[in-house]
């Protein structure tokens, strides 16, 4: 069984985290697109902590002695996916950034050419 106090703590911290994230999005400090997994994580946490039967069942399936450990394991796995999705995003953005920098470099060249052309004309 899960300690009742632990359940309360997990539920309350998850709800507070959820509210904080929503508020950051509201203030335009966070992009909803990248926060969705975090919000989902908070919801899953609340459900797992509130309904201890699910955690106990999962612990049984994985042959883990304490249900709490099952919750921790699931948290770890979720964190892995969270961080990996961020790694994917960084990779994508890095590629776009490269294209952007190259574009700027080439544009500067065009501007240089135009300036030279204008001064030569005189």
């Amino acid at each position, binding site marked *: 069984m899960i300690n009742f106090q632990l359940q309360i703590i997990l539920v309350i911290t998850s709800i507070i985290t959820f509210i904080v994230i*929503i508020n950051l*999005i*509201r*203030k*335009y400090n966070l992009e*909803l*697109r990248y926060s*969705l997994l975090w*919000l989902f994580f908070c919801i899953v946490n609340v459900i797992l902590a509130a309904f201890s039967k699910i955690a106990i069942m999962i612990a049984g399936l994985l042959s883990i002695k304490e249900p709490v450990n099952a919750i921790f394991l699931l948290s770890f796995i979720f964190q892995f996916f969270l961080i990996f999705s961020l790694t994917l995003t960084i990779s994508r953005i890095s590629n*776009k950034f490269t*294209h*952007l920098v*190259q*574009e700027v470099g080439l544009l500067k060249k065009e501007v240089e050419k135009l300036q030279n052309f204008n001064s030569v004309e005189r």
Partner: protein
Amino acid sequence: MKVLAIVPAFNEEEGLLRVAEQFKEIDGVDIVVVNDCSKDATSTIGRKLGFNVIDLPCNLGIGGAVQTGYKYAFDQNYDIAIQVDGDGQHNPSYLKDLIKPIKEGRADLVIGSRYLKKEGFQSTLLRRVGINYFSFLIQLLQKKRITDPTSGFRACNRRVIELFSSRYPNDYPEPESIVYLLRNNYKIEEVPVIMNERFGGESSISSIKSIYYMIKVSLAIIIDNMRKIGLT
């Protein structure tokens, strides 16, 4: 009045032909095609057809591409900007109807709605369920009935051009931008239009992604509704 038609295009080498065809009869409207880093000949064909083409160095999605058009409209001092899809689904013959409420000062944004008179191409069942859902959500939050909240066929005045230039939602921007405007007390009106079936190319949203988008956009709309007036 200077009027600009913003045509976002991603892999629309066939669609642009149709758009050019439809715009033959129309004058008094400038056109800018925003090429969202297409993989096909969209840019070449756009230029061959005589369009003004902006080639983006990276793919931004519909929100980013359309916002580029609004920034262009703002920089070039246009009074009215109209969004027209790059696939030929939107018929420019409705341009006058779309602009009329803006010219008469009755609205800041005018949406061309397929569902006011329910004529013409009505889209798939799944899409219509989604559209009804967003209609309901917007009415719930902002007390305004918008029959076609996902329509990309919209015209707006200079105030909205300026607003959209600085902030415009990214994925599935149409419903979110509507709530954004309503929350800031802008006036929105709808006029009935008939849209054609998609001509060539592929729609950018598959049915599998639809559910993800519905959740995401619902959340975005609800959160936007929580922002106080003036927090643009």
